[in-house]
């Protein structure tokens, strides 16, 4: 509701008063520094979207299983070769004896 009184302050006085009251304030410097540090840390700790995380875990799991499988196959293959060579050497050593018995 408007007053019936004539305004007691002029526009210029009001502007001067506003200029005196609405003055810039300085935030706490510790707050400013801490917030900046937190924002930088926050960016560093971002893990990204959940699908990217799931994709990463999936790729890592498949790769690990593939590497383990390949390693196992190589070990088994080497064991087979070593066994085969040993058997051949054993057979070669036993053959002269077998001939003499005959």
């Amino acid at each position: 509701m408007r007053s019936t009184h004539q305004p007691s302050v002029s526009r210029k006085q009001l502007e001067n008063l506003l200029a005196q009251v609405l003055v810039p304030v300085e935030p706490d410097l510790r707050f400013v520094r801490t917030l900046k540090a937190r924002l930088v840390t926050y960016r560093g700790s971002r893990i990204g979207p959940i699908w990217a995380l799931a994709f990463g875990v999936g790729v890592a799991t498949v790769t690990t299983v593939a590497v383990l499988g390949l390693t196992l196959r190589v070990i088994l293959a080497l064991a087979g070769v070593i066994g085969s060579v040993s058997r051949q050497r054993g057979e070669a050593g036993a053959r002269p004896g077998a001939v003499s018995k005959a």
Partner: protein
Amino acid sequence: MSELARDEQDLVRRAGSDAAAFGELYERHVKRIYNYIYYRTGNHHDAEDLTERVFQRALRHVDKYEDKGVPFSAWLYRIAHNLVANWHRDRSRKPLLPLDERLFVARVGAQPESQAIDREEIEVLMACVRRLPEDRQQLLILKFVERMSNAEIGEIMGRTEGAIKSLYHRTLNALRDEVGAALVGGSDQPDG
């Protein structure tokens, strides 16, 4: 586009992936955003809390920021404006704007008696400012605290320079009526 504006746009483009670029933007704007929120909320605690939220939100969405020819600060003020509006809605209250002691320090040479009068005037003025619609409060803060021109305020508030000039004129008239009525009403009241 000025060199400063080009430099800022370059920082904004890099801020999505470069922490240092975002840090530079933060340094440039944190005080202005803090001031804006401080005068809208009325206390340092909430000003710090909301300023933090503004920059966290900006950090999350800066890679989606589109340059539409307005300053980056306009985008930050928009975020701050929305968060302050939510803050007021959540609390369903509008606290008195602070009558911080530092407001009186600038008055060089003021005597104790005149300070008492000034304080009363200021309390009345701030109460009247607090009752203004949000856009008018925003206009006064940007004009007096941030010392922005009508054109700059227009960019931030999404209005033309002429519209801001007109809004400012209407705001001062309304405020003058309110303050005049409050001061007259206050002085008319009986002592006992």
